[in-house]
Every structure is written in structure tokens, then in C-alpha cells.
């Protein structure tokens, strides 16, 4: 046993390595990125397990599923919205006869530190009818990841680890255990458990439903779900899930008594344990990070026999992150205040494009090109360049999900708007933009696509893109984009006027144009220079 200081993300990665991981796949996304980064560094140093960035979360999931198919242990990591992209293989993989352990780690981002929504992945685990483990600490992140592989092989399902930003990005000492060997490469599994033709799929679905009982028994008996009853005080019972426990524990010493407490770290919900807690309390406070997932189950439709407090009742904020402070208030303790300086107002300091960022130059050129056509519609996408929404650029009008800029531009153009320009980064284009562009090529849509190619996945810290810049050009022409209306520009201040002229001229073209504005991200360029 040794002690190592790890981020929650890194604890998951190390837990997987020690559990006999064979391969891990991911697409970068805050707050999940450091899982694969840790595995990549480990691979570089020790030669394995295999770890690789992928085009997107769907391909990553499918590659992990293939490792499991071959009988070995696989991990796939993503941020919460990444699971939307991987939802197809995820939901269907619950029906196949999982062979080697398959663990899907999903990092939710309550508070939206670096995301466009607060979706709660526990609903996805419930939707797929699988087991989900939700660690409260870095230590649990390590241990639960190890356990998740065993559960996956025991119950023949993928198992989800649900993280939240605070745990993913907080460091603490973790005690680690022995390293288990990798699974040996066995015979391929019986194909009837993997070919989801309706006749097989019906059997597999029936089997999954039958196994729900086993999952429930696991959940009721798991040491991840701990119940402590206080027979002398019935005034309050508390249910915590995941990291909410740490905020409860931060405050519990100040309560006049220690309330009966159920902590849930493993799903499906341990129904009997919940009933036991409710029988010992006149009022139950539910503390859970994300949506009121448990609270809604508890409330049902018919009024419950006892008072339930949580996000729906307004005792806990329904949006944003839990904190020791809002949990404190929910527990009925007095709010604490810090130092006050009356009349002090501070200007906000929002994130911004770095000095020297190539996107700055492309936005200057774009603004100049679009000016004669106002009102023009500029759809955009997910990445550093979304910061073009802020002053002084105010250059874009949408940011919805990975790749949406292209499809939305096509739709807006077909609705009759003119001119329409889509702006997307190189990595986002390769993640989810290529298919949208195929649609636009097929229809020769009257729109201009500007791909801002900084040769990296910048926002998440400069991971390599799946395809180099030079190959990107061949891909675009290969899709059938008219070479006469395809241009590669250098995103540099000295070319701003020239670039603006090219964009302006393509806007006037009544059909599809694609422009790639290339220059390496200033941050990765610095790193590369330092390495040399």
C-alpha cells in the first residue's frame, strides 16, 4: 500500500490500471480530460496499458466495447455531454453479454464551469438499466473504479462511474492496492449475446430485466451504501449521494444531534435502506449533486407520508453546485459570512482568447468580411473560439453542441436566410462536423463554412487532433467540396485584409464554400518550442 496525491480523475485512471486495464479511450472534455492524460503518461513511461484519444465519444465507446468483446478490460471516459454523443453504443451495450469488464466514466459539470448544461448522468445509467457508482472522495474514485470492473464482469453489463467537477479536479492522498493482471485473451464470446437482431435482442432485454434483481441485491448489501440510524432523534434524517456526503460531514458536528444518515454511492437505489431511513425520521433532507434524481423517486406522485426536503422543495438550490455553505443552510445551520468591505464592486474578469491567438485574427477578418452584408448569421460551435461571442469580437450568434454550427447554418440557409456563415474548430469539425458538411455538399447549400484550424484541441489543454492539418484539406475536398470554392488561409494579422477579401468573395457565392484558416494555437506552439 502506498500513498499518492491524485486528482479525482487520476484516481480513476490509476484504479483502472491496478484493476488490470488493457485499453482506454476518450475524447477530451472538461472535467474528464485528465483521466486519459494520466493513462497516456503512464503508457509513455511503462509501455501500457493502451490509451488513445479518439474522434469522438461514440468511437471511443465502441473501441472500448471491442476490447470487452475480446475478453479484456476497457475504460472509456467522457464529460457528461459526451455521453449524449456515445448514447447509442452506451444504451445498446447494456444488452450485450459483456465479456471483459467495461467501465464508462462520465464527469458531470454542475455549475457549468466549462459546459453548456448541467445534465445528470445518473439518469443515463438508470435509462440503460445498469449499475452506477458515485464516489464521494478521491479514495473512493480509486476503489470504485477497481470494483466497477469486477461488477461489470460479474453481472455482464457496462458499469458507470459518475464523477462531478469538484471531485474530478480536486487532489487528495489516495492509498493504492495491489495490481491485478490483465485478462488473458480468451475465446470470443457466444455471438448470440452480441448480435442484437430483434430475436436476440428480445432475449437479451429479458435477461437484463431479470438481472435487475441481482443489481438490487448488490446495491442493498454494498458497503458503498451505508445506513446509520439514530433511534433517539427522529427530527431529521439525511440522505446523501456522492460528493454531497463531504459537505454534510463538513457541517454535521455543529448540529445539535447526529441525524440518521444514509449515504448512497451505488445505484440502482437501495430501496430497502431508503425505507429503513424514512421509518426512522419525521423529515428527510436529500443532498445530491446534479438533478433531484433520488428526490423525485422519493416523492413519487402520491404525497409521501413524511416531509421531504431537497431541490424540488427549494431547501437546496435547484441549479449550480452544492457547497458546504448551501448544504449548511439546508441543514438549518446559520449562514456564515466572511470579511465585508461595504461599497466594494469589482469588475468581472471573464475568460478570453489569448494574446496572439490565431482565432483573434480570423475573427477580425470575418468581422471585416461580413460587415457589408449585415445582418448576417454566424453560427458557431464548442471550443476556445466560442469566446468570439464576447467583446470586442461579438462575432458569433450560436453555440449549442459539438458540430451544430454546420447543420444549423444549413437549416438557416434553407429557411431563406442569407448570408449564413458557420464557424467551427478543427477538432470539433472532426468530432461531429464532417457528417454535417456531407449534408451541405449533397445539397450544395448556400453557406460559407470557416474552419478555424489551430492544429490542436485547445480548450481542454492542447491535446493532439485526430488528423493533421494537411490531411484535413484532403478530407474536405474528398467529401466533394468544389475546389474552386475551397481555400486555405493563414490566420495571421498581416493577412487579415486578404483573408477578409477571400471570405467576402465566398459569401457572395451562391452555393457551398469552405475556408480553412490555419495557424497553430499560441499555447501549443510555445510548448512545442520549449520542447525543442
Amino acid at each position: 500500500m502506498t500513498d499518492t496525491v491524485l486528482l479525482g480523475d487520476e484516481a480513476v485512471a490509476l484504479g483502472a490500471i491496478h484493476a488490470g486495464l488493457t485499453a482506454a479511450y476518450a475524447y477530451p472534455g472538461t472535467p474528464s480530460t485528465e483521466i486519459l492524460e494520466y493513462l497516456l503518461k503512464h503508457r509513455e513511461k511503462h509501455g501500457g496499458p493502451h490509451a488513445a484519444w479518439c474522434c469522438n465519444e461514440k468511437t471511443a465507446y465502441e473501441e472500448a466495447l471491442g476490447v470487452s468483446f475480446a475478453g479484456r478490460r476497457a475504460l472509456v471516459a467522457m464529460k457528461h455531454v459526451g455521453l449524449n454523443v456515445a448514447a447509442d453504443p452506451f444504451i445498446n451495450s447494456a444488452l450485450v453479454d459483456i465479456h471483459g469488464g467495461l467501465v464508462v466514466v462520465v464527469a458531470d459539470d454542475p455549475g457549468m464551469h466549462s459546459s453548456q448544461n448541467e445534465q445528470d448522468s445518473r439518469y443515463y445509467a438508470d435509462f440503460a438499466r445498469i449499475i452506477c457508482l458515485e464516489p464521494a472522495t478521491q479514495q473512493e474514485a480509486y476503489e470504485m473504479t477497481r470494483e466497477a470492473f469486477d461488477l461489470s464482469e460479474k453481472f455482464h453489463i457496462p458499469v458507470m462511474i459518475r464523477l462531478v467537477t469538484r471531485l474530478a479536479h480536486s487532489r487528495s492522498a489516495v492509498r493504492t492496492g495491489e495490481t491485478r493482471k490483465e485478462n488473458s485473451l480468451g475465446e470470443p464470446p457466444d455471438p448470440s449475446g452480441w448480435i442484437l437482431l430483434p430475436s436476440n435482442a428480445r432475449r437479451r432485454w429479458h435477461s437484463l430485466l431479470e438481472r435487475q434483481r441481482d443489481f438490487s441485491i448488490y446495491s442493498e448489501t454494498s458497503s458503498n451504501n451505508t445506513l446509520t440510524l439514530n433511534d433517539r432523534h427522529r427530527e431529521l434524517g439525511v440522505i446523501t449521494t456522492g460528493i454531497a456526503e463531504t459537505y454534510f460531514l463538513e457541517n454535521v458536528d455543529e448540529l445539535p444531534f447526529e441525524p440518521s444518515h444514509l449515504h448512497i454511492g451505488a445505484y440502482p437505489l437501495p430501496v430497502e435502506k431508503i425505507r429503513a431511513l424514512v421509518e426512522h425520521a419525521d423529515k428527510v433532507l436529500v443532498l445530491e449533486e446534479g438533478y433531484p434524481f433520488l428526490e423525485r423517486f422519493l416523492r413519487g406522485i402520491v404525497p409521501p407520508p413524511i416531509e421531504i426536503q431537497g431541490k424540488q422543495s427549494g431547501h437546496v438550490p435547484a441549479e449550480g453546485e452544492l457547497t458546504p455553505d448551501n448544504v449548511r443552510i439546508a441543514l438549518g445551520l446559520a449562514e456564515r459570512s466572511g470579511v465585508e468591505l461595504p461599497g466594494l464592486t469589482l469588475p468581472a474578469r471573464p475568460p478570453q482568447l489569448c494574446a496572439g491567438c490565431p482565432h483573434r485574427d480570423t475573427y477580425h477578418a470575418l468581422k471585416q468580411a461580413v460587415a457589408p452584408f449585415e445582418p448576417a448569421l454566424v453560427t458557431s460551435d464548442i471550443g476556445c473560439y466560442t469566446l468570439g461571442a464576447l467583446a470586442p469580437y461579438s462575432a458569433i450568434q450560436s453555440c449549442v453542441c459539438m458540430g451544430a454550427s454546420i447543420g444549423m447554418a444549413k437549416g438557416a440557409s434553407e429557411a431563406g436566410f442569407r448570408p449564413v456563415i458557420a464557424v467551427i474548430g478543427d477538432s470539433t469539425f472532426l468530432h461531429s462536423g464532417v457528417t454535417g458538411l456531407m449534408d451541405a455538399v449533397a445539397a450544395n447549400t448556400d453557406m460559407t463554412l470557416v474552419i478555424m484550424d489551430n492544429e490542436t484541441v485547445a480548450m481542454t489543454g492542447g491535446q493532439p487532433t485526430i488528423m493533421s492539418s494537411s490531411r484535413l484539406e484532403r478530407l474536405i475536398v474528398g467529401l466533394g467540396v468544389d475546389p474552386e470554392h475551397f481555400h486555405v488561409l493563414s490566420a495571421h494579422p498581416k493577412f487579415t485584409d486578404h483573408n477578409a477579401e477571400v471570405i467576402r468573395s465566398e459569401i457572395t457565392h451562391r452555393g457551398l464554400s469552405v475556408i480553412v484558416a490555419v495557424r497553430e494555437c499560441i499555447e501549443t506552439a510555445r510548448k512545442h518550442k520549449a520542447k525543442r
Partner: protein
Amino acid sequence: MKYDIILAGVGGQGVLSVSAIIGSAARSQGLFVKLSEVHGMSQRGGGVVANLRLSDKPIASDLIPQGTASMILSMEPLESLRYLNYLSPEGILITSTDPVVNIPDYPNLDELVLRIRSLPHNKLVDSEHLARQAGSARATNMVIIGAASHFLPVNEERLEDSIKNLFEGKGDKVVDINLKAFHAGRGAA
């Protein structure tokens, strides 16, 4: 004993390396440590904050509760004032006086300094100037750690070791400059 520190600055200023140095020094002394960091979008030139918790007992929450922090340690004067609601009335605010002006409505620096001086416990450090004297403007964070070191529940030697460990790969000269900067900060506070 518990000692909670709010670390503040602007993305790119090295808030995470400052917290890593103090955190590893505290750990080498046998303390429990939790460190909550900010990654992702906010690191792009925006305000960033980290929560560093040190204690002789296990620590529950990754986040510091309001009104209880023993110290706000800031790389930048405007950012130092952003988290006062976390500072205990007995707590101290230590900040560099060097502003990062990357917003159009940055307040008047003299007024900011007056505000900081009006706090019961405060230390203002001319960190860039001291770092230059020590040999490199890039060592400003070590000046800040030095200024904080009088108040931290961590030995001076442990902090020095932690700084040596962080920079040893960059050669003796870099280690010397950073240790010099640390001592300059220590002398200034």
C-alpha cells in the same frame, strides 16, 4: 489544527503551482491536504481560484466554507478582493501589488491598494520587483509563497525542499533564483 487557503489569480499566473508547492510541503510534514483546482475554460485569462485545505485531521469537503479561510493568497490585487466572503475575520489577505490589466474596466490601482490596506490583516508584496532582484520576473510566485510562509503551518525548510523539488530538473541556477525569490518574499512580509 486546520488552515484553509483561498488562492487567487488570473489564468496563466501559476495559481496551481503555488498551491502544489505549499500542498506538498504540508504533506511532507504529515498534514492532511485537499486541493481543489480550476481547469478548462476559466484558465483562458479569466479569474481563477483554488481551495487549499491543510489539517492535522482528515478533511471532508474539497471546498472551503465561507467565512472560515485563514488566508487569501493572491497573485493579483483585483483578484485578491474577489473572495473576501471566504475569509475569516481573523484571516489574512496577502497579495501581489502587480496588476494584470486585461479588462477595459480595471479599477484604479491606488484605490484597490487602499481597500486592501483597510483590512485588519493584510500584506502587500511588490512581488515582480523582488523577483527581478532575485534574478527573474518569472519567480514572482515564489516571492508570494515566501511572504505567506510566516503564517503557514508549514516549516520554512519544507517549503524550500518543495521548491527545490519542483525546479531541480531545470538546473541549479533556476533553483537558486527561486529560493532567492522565496527568501525575498519572506523578508518583505
